[in-house]
């Protein structure tokens, strides 16, 4: 495994490879176990950077692709043997197929193996236990701590008017209104 091959695999994993190098890189991945491991490592690192959960499916991805392809039933009947005719377009078709395979390996396969965002969240083994009190979300309650909405409303009006008429309101700037708007009593 050369340094150049490493760079190509890295660029391939990042989706930034020069299209002209796709064919050679796919061939190298197929033939080199070391490069295959490197390919897996790059995917794991990418998942970690994106804060994605590291799924078991990300491991040995190349082997799984091979296995899945091998397990696919032959849907189309095998064509009758025909004389081999080598087209002048054959090299380009090969490159296109290789690029398709690479696209499949990079983008489609992870979708096949990962549960996806719509998959149900696996419940915690301790879901039946109530979380400790200090972890519970506090719920808003009456701002003035009195159980009379009309009185609370009146106190709010008194306060807004007070803030607006008070001598130092302008001097204290946004502070009085930050209290008025920001305060939310908690239960």
């Amino acid at each position, binding site marked *: 495994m050369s340094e150049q091959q490493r760079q190509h695999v890295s660029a391939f994993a990042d989706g930034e490879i020069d299209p002209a190098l796709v064919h050679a890189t796919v061939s190298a991945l197929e033939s080199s176990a070391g490069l295959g491991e490197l390919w897996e490592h790059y995917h794991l690192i990418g998942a970690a950077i994106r804060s994605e959960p590291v799924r078991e499916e990300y491991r040995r991805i190349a082997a799984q692709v091979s296995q899945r392809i091998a397990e696919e039933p032959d849907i189309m009947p095998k064509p009758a043997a025909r004389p081999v005719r080598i087209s002048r377009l054959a090299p380009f078709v090969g490159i296109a197929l290789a690029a398709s395979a690479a696209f499949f390996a990079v983008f489609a396969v992870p979708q096949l193996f990962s549960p996806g965002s719509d998959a149900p969240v696996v419940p915690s083994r301790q879901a039946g236990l109530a979380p400790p009190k200090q972890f519970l979300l506090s719920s808003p309650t009456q701002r003035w701590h009195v159980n009379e909405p*009309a*009185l609370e409303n009146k106190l709010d009006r*008194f306060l807004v008017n007070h803030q607006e008429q008070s001598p130092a309101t302008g*001097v204290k*700037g946004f502070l*009085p209104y*930050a209290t008025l*708007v920001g305060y*939310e009593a908690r239960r």
Partner: protein
Amino acid sequence: MKHGDSLFVADTRTPCRRYFSSHSVTSCRLLLLSLVALCCTHATASGRTPEELLARMSDALRSLSYEGTIVYLYESNLETLRIVHRVEDGQVQERLVSLNGPLRTLTRENGRVTCELSDSHPISIRGHGVGKDVLHARALDPEALSDNYEVHPLGAARVAGRQTDVVGIIPQDDLRYGYRFYLDQDSGLPLKSDLIGQLTDPIEQVMFTSLRLLPSQKSPSATGSAPAPPQGSRSHPRSLVPASLPWHFDSLPSGFIPVMHDNWHDTGGQLAEHFVLSDGLASVSVYVESDPQGGLEGDTRIGAIHAAGRRVAGHQVTVVGEVPLQTVEAVLAGIRKGREERP
């Protein structure tokens, strides 16, 4: 061994310390004390005096347009607010929106303050009533506050990525809160305000986490320096309340005097007599309603703002303000109807 006995023990100090223990130490100490005193009473990180910083703060709040995100910390709760403050043609437009929890907004525009709080009817108040020009536009005058507060430079700090000078307004008793303002060295805006009570930790903190200064439309009324208090009234706030009113205050918390009286029309046409009492910085409002529909009996609060109410001579009296509970209770206890009545 007594403290003074150390004068007679063998001198084991380093040559350097022995040098400073010579007769020149007295002049050195005097010099140091003078420098420290100078720093503590006048100098700030930007070289401005606390008086200059407070005047700049007033000017900045009156003239600058800005927008930003504010965090508000109280009782271990953290709230985020979005503020947009514009000054155009001398008029302030301000919008404050809570970004956490139930939506709460406050808008100051076209001479009105409109407030929508959670689980509450919208509130719309006519802004800046009687005495506004006299009382509101004035810069904070440390000399006028000197009976009840001390103003100190507290050093420098970095807030929202900007350098600030820190000024403390320290109360001399428990009847009012103290403030710590972190003032932007470039613009003069307060980027952080700490409300300080008797405990070590601030009661409330309000701080910009991001600030963007907007182009300001220059206007003489908006950008001129905040008017200084008129000569002869610098030492104490002056009462602007006529003595002929049917309500008066027998006793008030130290430093507080009535500075404003108005007949305030509450929602639905309810009329209330409205007094504002101030010590020059802190203030409380007293509302006297002759025909109240529900009134506060006892005391309550939101954050550092306290309210207390009771019936006095057949009227509902409610006191509200950003002061400690004992202050609103003292104001409430001091109000009388007429000159002869006693509770």
